[in-house]
């Protein structure tokens, strides 16, 4: 895996990033509202929220680092370990299950050789199951990072993956 500590330090030292954070903090009536938004920023840039960032944002927003840790670990979308380049999120809740999400998941597991929670050795794909994505009429639903794909058959899945580099 890449040097995550180094990447974190580099990001925190980047004045452009600091400006993004400042802008975020200034855009809400109270700075605490910016916490989860800042964590999204970090998760997007570093593919996880390392301890260095947790300590930094805690200090920046006048919170305790323990509080930030509590927030990071509560929400599904933040991870403390780096994700692969593409996060494949397969919805497994009832409407998508009725549409065939189990077939889709099994196909992805066997194609990538990983179970949910795992990442391919080349760091390209992480696979997780998620709960209802609110597109139940388009099940089985698959999100790849921020892109939502509807009614994804196993063939569709192959096509989607092949288009990702």
């Amino acid at each position: 895996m890449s040097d995550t500590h180094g990447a974190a330090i580099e990001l925190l030292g980047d004045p452009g990033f600091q400006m993004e954070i400042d802008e975020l903090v200034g855009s809400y009536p109270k700075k605490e509202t910016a916490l989860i938004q800042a964590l999204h920023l970090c998760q997007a840039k570093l593919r996880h929220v390392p301890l260095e960032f947790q300590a930094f944002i805690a200090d920046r927003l006048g919170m305790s680092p323990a509080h930030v840790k509590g927030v990071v670990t509560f929400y599904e979308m933040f991870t403390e370990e780096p994700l692969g380049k593409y996060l494949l999120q397969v919805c497994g809740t009832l409407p998508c299950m009725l549409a065939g999400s189990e077939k889709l998941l099994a196909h992805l597991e066997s194609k990538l050789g990983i179970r949910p929670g795992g990442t391919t050795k080349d760091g390209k794909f992480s696979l997780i199951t998620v709960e209802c994505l609110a597109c139940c009429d388009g099940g089985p639903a698959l999100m790849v990072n921020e892109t939502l794909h509807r009614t994804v058959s196993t063939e569709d899945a192959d096509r989607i993956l092949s288009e990702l580099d």
Partner: protein
Amino acid sequence: MAELLQFLTKNVGVSNSTHVDTYMGNGGYEPMMKALHKMKPEAVLNEVKASNLKGRGGAGFPAGLKWSFLPKEKKRIRYLVCNADESEPGTFKDRLLIENDPHLVLEGIIIAGWATQAKGCFFYIRGEMPQGARIFRKAVDQAYNKGFLGKNILGSGFDFDVWVVRGAGAYICGEETALMNSVEGKRGEPRLKPPFPAGYGVYGEASNINNVETYANIPYIIEKGADWYKSIGSAGSPGPRLFGVSGHVKRPGVYELPGDVTVREVIFKHAGGILGDRELKAVIPGGSSTPVLRSDQIDVPMDPDGLGSVGSMSGSAGVIVMNDTVCMVKAAVNLAHFYTHESCGQCTPCREGTHWLLDLLTRIESGEGKPGDPDLILQICDNIQARTICPLGDACAMPVRSFVQQFREEFEEHIRAGRCPLHAVEMTTVI
């Protein structure tokens, strides 16, 4: 027979519908101008109250009445909150509005702000809808540019802001006080009530929270009046309503219908009937937190009284249809897994009880169930329901109980035979 309506969904499918010019070209923001220029805040609130608009997030609390709980003293800060955390399984109507007609929602929020003299609105959108957040932010920017947001809106003296706040993956943040905690940069853990949001809300300020679809109804109520609104649907569920149909139907999707359409009509007339041309076995009428119905219970209106008469609730109008290839135990396991995963963990009954239910249901599904398991499940549901800080405990207990009660024989058969009676049947799927 209930026909499809085109109020809330008027702009869906229209080219460039998310742009403010398109929206205004179709009559948009005229209700807002009417409210700000021709109606006192009190009058707007009374009109909404008179319409008896019910909240569309799932609880069905009268919106106008909720607005009236806010303190009126000028010196107090009032916040609005728009709950765009749509995460109730089977529900996808808010996404439709946000992604296709954000200005309808925004206009409703601004009118609500005027009625309640609020300082601004936190638009809280689930983290898994980044596209929706982008679209709504753009709509907000357009509204600022037009002078519909910000200081002294259209010369009315009214200041109002909208802040878009993303969630980060937690169903519980759809609960109003957990949502407020999340807005405050905390874990999404529900608060004790009382105090209620109207007295102590976001950052301790008086707050009113409503669902996306609820706000989307407001421009119509102002434009056409409360009487018109009540002429659609029933007394228990007035106005046009967005029903989301998913599962084993030929035409899943969002259907705008009067609030008292029957379950049968929704499934067979509008959603095309059962996928695979098979028989209907079970249907969840209002999102996964509502008790499941059998196929002989679908001739009721989908308003609170109608669904109440068959032991269920109108909830979020998320209709999940299951045909006769679906194992009811498997469906129950799926839901128990959902609630266990989403429990915030604060209070004992929900934190521990949901996981125990999941274990019991799983062993029944796998053929390892014991004869006492169904009754034990019912007792655990009794120990969870009405004992928790927030309704998530109830939301798990009620559907699980309903599956066991409505399909008891299927559960017993799993236990007797040591396997699912449908083990040789392939479940209908879309893919």
